[in-house]
């Protein structure tokens, strides 16, 4: 496919290149005939002569001509032949794709195929095994750690304990389910967690504050103001649909358990109020296409093993 919007640049490149190479050939050919006086004896050289170009300045300053060896000339001609052959076989003359049809994208695909044929069998072996068995395998665990550090640690941290907005993978608190199959699903297809803004549904800012304190009281936090909690409990019915009875969460929807001490965005009253007022929108990207099922299987086993006793350490 041509990246040029007009045919002019194609022609420009083709002309410059071919004229340049032809010019080199012409230069070589035109200079290989020796014009001017032949060899003249130069004193002090043991009687051997050195040719001159015939130019003379200031009566006796001559320009010597010490020719290069003939094999050097042949090397120049060989480079011209090489250039012509190269430009015929490979892309270089504008939009001409070259007889061999080489593409850098094709070279990349070849490399991928080579890597797949080399490492594929290893991942296939683990793919056939149950996730818990993979988690117990020391080699798989080491591979999983390396994969995790490469692909997951930017968001979830090198120790997998997450950040504000990025879940802690090493605890037993799961938004979408913590059994091995659910974890694998999460990595393969990603997750999209949406908390709609509930400010309008609840009423005024004071209402939001009351609900926030009620939520804090669910986990027995000392920061929960008892009076505000009581007022908040009534308004909390708006939240039951997603967060379930008692606010214990709904893994089918990805709605967090509000009655524990794990907070994805922070556990202060202000942060909870912000969540209620503005909502939250969080995405875990899907890694299935990017990594392939083999790598995802090993990764899922590793992640599961972070919060479960998987077996002997590697």
């Amino acid at each position, binding site marked *: 496919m041509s990246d040029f919007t007009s045919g002019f640049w194609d022609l420009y490149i083709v002309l410059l290149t071919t004229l340049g190479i032809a010019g080199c050939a012409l230069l070589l050919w035109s*200079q*290989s005939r*020796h014009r001017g006086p032949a060899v003249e004896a130069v004193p*002090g*050289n*043991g009687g051997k002569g050195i040719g001159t170009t015939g130019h003379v300045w200031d009566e006796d300053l001559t320009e010597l001509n010490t*020719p*290069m*060896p*003939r*094999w*050097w*000339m042949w090397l120049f001609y060989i480079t011209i032949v090489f250039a012509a052959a190269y430009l015929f076989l490979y892309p270089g003359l504008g939009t001409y794709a070259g007889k061999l049809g080489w593409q850098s994208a094709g070279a990349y695909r070849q490399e991928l195929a080579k890597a797949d044929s080399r490492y594929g069998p290893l991942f296939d072996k683990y793919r056939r095994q149950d996730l818990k068995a993979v988690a117990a395998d020391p080699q798989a665990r080491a591979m999983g*750690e*390396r994969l995790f*550090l490469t692909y997951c*640690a*930017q*968001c*979830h*941290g*090198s*120790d*997998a*304990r997450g*950040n*504000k907005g*990025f879940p802690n993978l090493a605890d037993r608190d799961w938004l979408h389910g913590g059994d091995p199959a659910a974890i694998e699903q999460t990595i393969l297809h990603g997750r999209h967690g949406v908390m709609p803004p509930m400010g309008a549904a609840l009423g005024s800012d004071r209402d939001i504050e009351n609900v926030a304190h009620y939520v804090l009281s669910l986990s027995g936090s000392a920061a929960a103001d008892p009076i505000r909690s009581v007022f908040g409990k009534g308004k909390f019915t708006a939240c039951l649909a997603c967060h379930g009875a008692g606010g214990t969460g709904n893994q089918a929807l990805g709605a967090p358990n509000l009655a524990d001490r794990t907070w994805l965005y922070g556990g202060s009253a202000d942060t909870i109020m912000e969540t209620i007022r503005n909502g939250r929108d969080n995405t875990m990207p899907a890694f299935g296409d990017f990594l392939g099922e083999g790598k995802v299987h090993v990764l899922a086993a590793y992640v599961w093993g972070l919060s479960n006793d998987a077996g002997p350490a590697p």
Partner: protein
Amino acid sequence: MYEKRQPIHPRETDGRYARLRWLCVWLTQLVYYGTPWLAWNGRQAVLFDLGARKFYVFGLVLWPQDFIYLAALLILCAWALFLVTAVAGRVWCGFACPQTVYTSIFLWLERRIEGSRAARIALDRQGPSVRKFARRTARHLAWGAVALWTGFTFVGYFTPVRELGMDVATLSLGPWQWFWVLFYSFATYGNAGWLREQVCRYMCPYARFQGAMFDRDTLIITYDTVRGEPRSRKAANGACIDCTLCVQVCPAGIDIRNGLQYECIGCAACVDACNNVMDRTGQPRGLIRYSTGRAMASRLTRTQIGRRLLRPRVLAYCAALLAASLAMGYALATRIPLKVDVLRDRGSMGREVDGGAVENVYRLQVMNTSEQPHRYRIAVAGLPGLALATGSVADLAGTETRAVPVRVRAPHGAGKPGSNAITFTLTALDDARLSVGERAVFIVPH
């Protein structure tokens, strides 16, 4: 613009310098051809494993991060070359350079197969004949065999030579191995068989900057004009009898009697040839000898030449060489085969955990550059109460690199808000000398 090259058939000669050159050939080639076959600790002693990016030199395992030693080695070689050239001219060229060494070997084969200089010149002029064809074929086959062995040995520095040998014997070399073996064989064959002095004359930069490295006290091969001129075949003139043997033995095809020329590679074949002739004509040796420009101009004695040896330029080179060698030797001797890099997690500045403690997460890139496995203890220090919240040991196999995630916890109130300097120390449990400390930053959120 170009000229057809005149082939040079140097006449064979014998003498002190010819013997010295053959000694150099033997020594250098014993090292070159023999070293890949040496074993160490169950592997090849000298192996440059490009694929795994590790260079093995006997007990030393050098990683890409150790490139400084290669740079230092090259600097040492360059300064040694400058020193030797300042003292004695192009002795590298004439005695030890691979171009000269392989040309000598190939010339020796050529002489054994095709005969003396006169015989080879005659063979060149001869028209095609069975005898000529047979001689030429034999010569090229002999050259080809030496070239292939040389190419094979060269690749044997990069691929274990014994396996390479097996692959060659069973013709199961990979395409790239075929390419490199044949490429270096072809290069040897081409350079030593065909190009010879053309490399020295047109390709090698050393010829061209020799003028910058010589001075008036450098020992160079000199024709004693005062003694030798006027040259004549008759007696009672200069010492030079114009036998032209010095021209016939010259592999560069020059006449040393014209003085210092850039083509002269300093092989001293003309010295040997002339000395032989001087012996036969009952004259003192040394008409062509190693001497200096100042000695020729001022007619210095050998002692006087020797005293000029310890001049500032030479002493400066010696001092630089000594300092660099000592520094490199010391660095290599005290080198710790453990490398640690600390990479702080950038996802979060600092994480608050239960009880108000602050955590920072790091990744320790640990490289065990020795060939034995080790267990390392990780320690962290720099703030009161600073401690690791993850495991404190890391196991690494020989020549293994691992990224070890660690979590460092500081109690509430330790350190100032913002960045605090801390250090990580890794120590091998079985060898306290294998200890490396690395600085890092611990961030306490405001």
